[in-house]
């Protein structure tokens, strides 16, 4: 622990903070007495799965609780100011000037009707920290420090005119503009690609160091927090599990829960070469209107194996899936299944062809009709494809629920009454219900916490072994690829860069893009980012 007798430079001190939240017509404990001490210039990483209370705790550090939540106990001292007793007006004076908040979705946090520079300097100007012109000049310097392209002119753009990674950096500049003492980063890179994430992380780290700002960094990605934080606090069920300096935490976690978090990334499937090609995509071109998104894509998928398609967003991964499912007929080339060509358009395919290829989506909560129960969701493909009704249908639904490690008590639940991992399991059961040959998994684990991801990946592997299912696994996460794939296809800007067995692709020599992609995946080594940036040409 970093507690020293010298208390002078303590910026934030939270003692025994308790927060209750209201849902289902009663109050629940969300935070059950957590302490947090933060010194000037220090960065603490808060990690835990969703629902662990990390965001709630992060916001409580500002003296803020969301609607539906209330602070029921404990003390929060920010630089000697008691935020529990402070009036709303007093807290508003602190917020945005001495304490800043960087949200997960920068796109949703900017006002689309105002220029970036105006929003960046708003807090500093309106609170009269310094004259407007000075703030603007300072913002340009911040843009430069954050390595934004054209720092002099980028502020003149509107939020929709810059990329997601750039927007996240502008938001950091906005938080930095009034020179706060404390910044709270709430999952700032979760929505970004790995290659963009690296740029944003290094920019954030540099600027926080430069201005000696204290920060609370909230994330569920351990590798990311390892790059940023001086010490790490692990939360679970609103309680602290463990707190330790980053290096010690990574090398010697004490509690079993922390160890289980750390071991998630160790999952790796031994690769097996497949012979019998079940699905092949031959020289496919595809376009959205005039915009050509796939160029001569050729992929062959062997039966009972997993082919992972990797690439950043916009590389054409999901478009390939849409071509296979028939949602987007290709402009050239063809898709063949079991050696026979598939009709290009969805409406020309037979029920049998549809049944053979199933799909699982990234966001399980939008992939299930919120007004249908779990039973209705799983039973529909049984009735539609296999004509199962009544008792036989019910027995099969229970069977399927057991396969995905749930039980019949889930049948009457609505999707809103399930957790993220359970939702994704129901989606898997729905796909399984059709007895498919091929399941297309579109980023199925990227919206989930690591520990839940591991559960889903293990389930998919087990199902593959039992039923000899073929997966086309679309992802941007290399750890997931290592865990599940036999073969890898690397895509970049609508083209296939590389294709082959996992061991071939993940071993040098790499083509340029594969190299960039692989090196951008954060590793659980606190020096990874530093070393990476040193190795990359500026």
């Amino acid at each position: 622990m970093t507690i020293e007798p010298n208390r002078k430079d303590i910026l934030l001190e939270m003692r025994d903070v308790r927060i209750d939240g209201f849902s289902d017509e009663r109050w629940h404990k969300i935070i059950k007495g957590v302490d947090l001490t933060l010194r000037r210039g220090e960065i603490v990483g808060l990690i835990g799965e969703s629902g662990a209370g990390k965001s709630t705790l992060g916001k409580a550090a500002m003296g803020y609780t969301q609607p539906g939540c209330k602070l029921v106990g404990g003390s929060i001292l920010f630089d000697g100011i008691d935020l529990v007793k402070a009036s709303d007006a007093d807290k508003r004076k602190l917020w945005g000037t001495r304490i800043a908040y960087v949200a997960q979705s920068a796109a949703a946090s900017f006002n689309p009707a105002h220029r970036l520079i105006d929003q960046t300097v708003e807090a500093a100007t309106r609170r009269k920290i310094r004259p407007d012109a000075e703030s603007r000049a300072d913002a340009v310097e911040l843009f430069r420090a954050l390595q934004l392209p054209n720092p002099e002119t980028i502020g003149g753009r509107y939020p929709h005119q810059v990329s997601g990674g750039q927007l996240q950096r502008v938001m950091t500049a906005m938080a930095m503009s009034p020179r706060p003492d404390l910044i709270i980063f709430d999952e700032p890179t979760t929505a970004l690609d790995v290659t963009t994430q690296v740029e944003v992380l290094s920019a954030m780290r540099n600027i926080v160091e430069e201005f000696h700002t204290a920060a609370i960094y909230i994330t569920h990605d351990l590798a990311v927090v390892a790059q940023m934080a001086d010490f790490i606090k692990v939360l679970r069920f609103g309680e602290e599990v463990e707190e330790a300096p980053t290096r010690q935490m990574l090398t010697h976690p004490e509690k079993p829960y922390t160890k289980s978090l750390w071991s998630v990334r160790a999952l790796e499937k031994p690769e097996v070469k497949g012979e019998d090609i079940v699905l092949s995509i031959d020289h496919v071109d595809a376009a959205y209107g005039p915009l050509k998104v796939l160029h001569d894509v050729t992929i062959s998928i062997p039966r009972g194996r997993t082919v992972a398609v990797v690439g950043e967003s916009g590389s054409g991964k999901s478009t390939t899936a849409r071509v296979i499912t028939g949602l987007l007929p290709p402009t050239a080339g063809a898709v063949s299944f079991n050696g026979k060509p598939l009709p290009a358009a969805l409406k020309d395919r037979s029920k049998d062809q549809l049944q053979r290829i199933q799909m699982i989506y990234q966001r399980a909560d939008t992939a299930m009709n919120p007004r249908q129960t779990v039973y209705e969701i799983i039973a529909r493909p049984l009735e539609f494809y296999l004509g199962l009704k009544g008792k036989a249908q019910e027995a099969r639904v229970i069977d399927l629920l057991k396969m995905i490690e749930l039980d019949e008590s889930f049948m009457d639940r609505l999707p809103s009454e399930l957790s993220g991992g359970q939702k994704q399991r129901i989606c898997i059961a729905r796909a399984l219900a059709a007895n498919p040959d091929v399941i297309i998994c579109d980023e199925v684990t990227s919206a989930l916490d690591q520990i839940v991801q591991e559960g889903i990946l293990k389930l998919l592997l087990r199902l593959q072994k039992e039923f000899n299912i073929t997966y086309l696994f679309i992802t941007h996460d290399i750890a997931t690829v290592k865990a599940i794939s036999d073969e890898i296809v690397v895509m970049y800007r609508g083209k296939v860069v590389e294709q082959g067995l996992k061991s071939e692709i993940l071993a040098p020599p790499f083509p340029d893009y594969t190299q960039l992609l692989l090196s951008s995946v954060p590793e659980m080594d606190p020096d990874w980012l530093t070393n990476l940036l040193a190795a990359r040409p500026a």
Partner: protein
Amino acid sequence: MSEQPQTYEAAAEVGAVRKRRTRLERTGLLLKSAPPSAWFGMIVVGLYILVALLADVIAPYGEAQIHPVPFAPWGGEFMFGTDQIGRDVLTRLIYGARNTMGIALATTLLSFLIGGGLGLVAAINRSWLDQLLSRFVDVLMAIPSLIFALMLLSIFGSTVTSLIVIIAILDSTRVFRLTRAVAVNVAVMDYVEAAKLRGEGLGWIMRREILPNILPPLVAEFGLRFCFVFLTIAALSFLGVGIQPPTADWGSMVRENASLIQFAKYDLTAAITPLLPAAAIALLTVAVNFIVDWFLHKTSGLRDDH
């Protein structure tokens, strides 16, 4: 908190989910949470429905029965007096509830069937059909609806059927717009795509995947539309092309007795007579809107801060 599980288990992720309630229990809970304004609305609407259903029993005279005294004063034999040709005003009011409300309900249902159905088709299809329907609706909406209705009624004649069909079609344009707008948002959801990939037909996607998810705004709109239809019928009747005599109807009752207002300085009750059916319309409109407001508040997810 007791011992936490240290290993991961899928079924334990969301532990205690409250017991699923039966429909009856849920309705009971819902009614308990209703504010006084909604209760007022429900009671008034309930009374109106009761009056409409039991019109034959509670009305003192026949619907078109003519008494020898026109413009009889209030009290005595005729509680609210008689109209210009000697029909009992109270009886006409009671039968008016049945006719006006029945026609309004039929019209609203028909307009939702047309507008809602086509709106859903347009939202799912999104191709030339959507363009065709939407532009046609634009054209219809560009013509002032009351004048258009007047014109059509004078072409096709003022029968009850043509009244229902014409108002329903003109009103369905608004329903179409609303349905299409909310359904388009639902139609891009992954679960609709999943249903398409499964090979489901248009009917299934419309009824089972999209409709349940857009029902709240549609029900709210139904309440509002019902009021507007009601007012349109009353307005048309007032202009003489709506419900034709001797069928009792509140709109035409206002028109027929409107001249009584000028006798206010001699007999206040006589002046109130034409206002009675107007008040009946106003009360029902207010009551229905109270219920709709409550429903909107319930389903819009707006919650009072705790």
